[in-house]
């Protein structure tokens, strides 16, 4: 399983990377390589040129930016995993990261790489969708943004334009009495999830002031349960109400069917995990840190 031949360039900065991309439509950017290299080994991906962006220091950062936290595209997943700012301001992301692959893949895998690859089961993608993050990219010397809801649109499909390179993702930070929870189910502990659910909510006077519920791996890209969010906003989040709202939101969603899980399983368990995530986020906001799993 040796990759097909390719040319290799190291980009000194992002514009150089984009120039290489623009010059050759068979060229691809490589960051952590944890997904790209296996595909190349199986000859499912055959770039003519790999543009290595790993050493572009300017793309590796975690910092506050406006009312959010911005993470540079080549920031390693393991760095995010240990970061204090993330733990403090983006607790939902902090919960999700340890579920990505194994320590050895998180040591190399990047935030940008995961987003750009857009696997249906990608945890970072799910969190980006759940928190209405904004993805930034660079192309032809210009930077532009795509909201997460418009970014990951299909299985391994994003709306990143041709020749563009993802540069950062910015997650809004919620203030107030915030609780988060993340659940996923898979065959083995570190596999691609069959279904994942993320929930973040803000409590005020014991009621839900604001809530975001995302479901990943059940469909070809992460989805939000908007109708459930609307129904549950302002409520006390009673378990039965949560369960019904989540089920209604998922009715009619066409779930994936493959070797690992049936469509029926995914729909049913999406409901279960989303409800559990909401319950656990509520407990988290109330100061009881339990996780139903």
């Amino acid at each position: 399983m040796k990759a097909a031949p390719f040319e290799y360039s190291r980009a000194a900065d992002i514009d150089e990377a984009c120039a290489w991309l623009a010059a050759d439509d068979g060229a691809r950017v490589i960051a952590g390589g944890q997904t790209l290299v296996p595909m190349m080994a199986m000859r499912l991906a055959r770039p003519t040129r790999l543009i290595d962006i790993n050493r572009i220091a300017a793309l590796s950062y975690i910092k506050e930016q406006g009312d959010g936290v911005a993470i540079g595209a080549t920031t390693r997943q393991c760095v995010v995993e240990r970061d204090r700012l993330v733990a403090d301001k983006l607790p939902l992301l902090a919960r999700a990261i340890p579920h990505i692959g194994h320590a050895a893949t998180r040591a190399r895998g990047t935030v940008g790489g995961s987003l750009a690859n857009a696997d249906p089961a990608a945890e970072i993608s799910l969190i980006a969708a759940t928190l209405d993050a904004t993805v930034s990219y660079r192309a032809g010397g210009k930077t532009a943004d795509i909201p997460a809801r418009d970014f990951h649109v299909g299985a391994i499909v994003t709306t990143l334009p041709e020749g563009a390179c993802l540069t950062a993702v910015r997650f809004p930070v919620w203030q107030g009495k915030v609780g988060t929870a993340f659940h996923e189910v898979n065959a083995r502990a570190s596999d691609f999830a069959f279904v994942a659910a993320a929930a973040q909510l803000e409590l005020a006077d014991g009621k839900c002031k604001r809530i975001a519920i995302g479901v990943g791996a059940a469909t070809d890209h992460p989805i939000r349960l908007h109708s459930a969010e609307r129904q549950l906003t302002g409520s006390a989040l009673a378990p039965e109400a949560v369960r019904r709202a989540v089920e209604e939101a998922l009715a009619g969603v066409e779930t994936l069917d493959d070797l690992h899980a049936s469509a029926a399983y995914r729909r049913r368990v999406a409901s279960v995990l989303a409800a559990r995530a909401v319950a656990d986020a509520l407990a988290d906001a109330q100061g009881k840190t339990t996780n139903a799993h």
Partner: protein
Amino acid sequence: MSATGRHRYVSTDRRVREDRRFVAGKGRFVADVELPHMKHVAVVTCPHAAARIGKIDKRTALAMPGVHYVLDGAELAVATLPLMTGLDTPNVPRRPLALDIARYSGEWVAAVVADSRALAEDAAEAVEIEYAPLPFVLDAEAALEKGSPLVHEAHGSNVLLDRTFVWGEVERDFAASPRKLALRVKWGRSSTVPIETFGVVASWDPWRDMLDVHASIQMPRFADQIGIALKIPATSVRVHHDVDVGGSYGVKRGIKHAVLCGYLSRRLGFPVRLIEDRLENMRGGDAHGPERLFDVEVAFDDAGIVRSMKMRALENVGAYAGRSPFQLGKPIGAIVGPYRIASVQYRAIAVVTNKTTQDAVRGFGQGPTNLALERAMDEVANALGLDPLELRRRNLIRRDEFPYLIPSGTTYDSGNYETVIDKVLANTGYKELTAERDRLRREGKLAGIGIAACLEPSGGNATFEALLNPAITTSTFMDSCRINIDGLGAITATMHTTSSGQGHETLVGTVVGEVLQVDPESVRVTRPDSLNSLPSGTPVGSRMAIMLGGAAFHAAQKLKAKLTAIGAHDLGIPLERAVYDQGSVHDRSAPQNKRGWADLVNIAFRNYHRMPAGFEPGLAVEHIYQVPTGGVLPGKDGRVQMYPCFSFEFHLLLIAIDPDLGRPQIMRYRLGHDCGTQINPKIVRGMTMGGIAHGIGAALYEEFAYNEEGQLIAQSFMDYLLPSSHEVPAVDIVDHETPSPHTVLGQKGSGESGYLGAPAAVANAINDAIRPLGISVNTVPIKVSKLGDLIAQARERNAR
């Protein structure tokens, strides 16, 4: 001293000497072997489940950089004979490269030789092959139906084997039994999947007429089969046994790879290497294992005594067959498990389909058979409202009934099943476990206790070959050891096969040290090549502790006798007065009169005038050891003694299942294990834990799954799921030793332990957990999604 005080070195907690090189990364695996001018092979595989092979256009490939040759099936078929088959099926030939017709997706159709593996892969993509797809069949039952596509037209059907055996008064026993039940159990296609794939380097020397073969091999008669296929004498084939094998557990047969590379080396004049990459391995290499459908019927009474059993085992062998159909025959030697079932009808059917050819897998069919048997026993318990453990107790062969003759003609050597079970329960109260299960149930989980009481036949007396193919008359199954003490008194012992982690060098050193009463570390153990070897059956059938241990023991005894005789003669005393003690010989009546090791060696090597009359000089001995209880062929009634020794394992585990997710978690795992005398406890524990891990994989995660187009969809480790450290729980192992009367030290085999019973125990635990919902599952692997859906459907039904 060992725990029992019986032995000096055997059963003591000794390090495994092989470990030292492995921790430094200094093992010598086949991919580490580099020969000058060596070239590399990549194979071209068929993308269709079945297809007629048309034109093969090699021109583009041959013009690519570094490419030396492109070999196709037609050329290879002219130059070689088809590979060995076990059954008498001349119209089902198998070859390294497909000839005229490719019969499974992934089958090897052409081979490219290039300067590097990467260049060979580049060129392999450029070989253009015309295929005309043919009808195909994937399911074993469909392959039996009239009108099914035939995998091998000339054979006339898809059936390679269909034999029914009736041992005892089955119909009478069924008629006389007040109760019967029937169930269907399916063992999904899985295997042991070593982390190292199969690899071979073949190098032909035309000046010595010698084909040197370095391979990651675990198979008997490897050199023979290469020679036969290549039409050269087996003495022109030299297999290097000192290659370290990165795990095999049965599957590494390597014969098509070795014939392919051997031919290429002879043809092209340089060494040729093929290391399967993981895709080649999973789709068409040495990888697949049994896929078996059981229909079991048992006849029993109201007390739960199982009197008789009918079993039909239908095996999906894949598109070709070598030895693998015999995996239906080996379980005959333990067909009633540890139970007193009086009569058995067994029908073994092997069919070909357009799936990858299966190889031998750890246990050689015993694991799947134990699953079927143990599921049946649990269902008998369930039908009667009896505790499954109590049901086992009522049926187990009792300690005073050994040696015990089972209906199919094998005698079990020894056993003490009740004591092993009691030991496990003393460690973990069954009541406590039941209480924990009930607590989990109250918390809303599904929870179940699973048990399995299984036998591990060991010793490798493979009379199932003759039983299933009357043209085979093999009753010799042997292993050997040669020991030489050199002129300065250093000891070297030899073993004559490869080793894949079982610690055989340590085994030989320990046994020789035990007999000669010298430190095992002082015994050098080597693995000479096949031309310098005595016969060996290789590590199959859980035989090496018994057979290699036996050969080493007897050789060492011969040496000890020779040393004693030399000492007695030189002391001028009758032999009966001579005492051998830790390398010296002294006079029992006058212990101060002795000859030390150096003296004895000196006499043997340099003082022929002091040697007893008629003795050969030097100190070299060998022993070729025939398998205990062997040497008898099957009778007309299809009854025969198979393996000589029977280890026993009792699994007890507690599983919790999240009912909404269908995801099982093993909460507690206890194992009682009795393999007789343990020559090296560290090795035995390791093999057992590894076997349990394999078993958990087969029960819950692993499957070579195909889609309807006949494509293998689990073709990488992303889809064929191997248990990691998270999936294998801590296991409490309780040992017991019921020695075998047949073996030199009372040892039985343990190479397959854990694997043979774990899937049954896991399946039983899951069934215990879901039984309150009125459902059962009898197919492994029991995947999360399937279990989840099953539970959801049952809850829906129960709600209505």
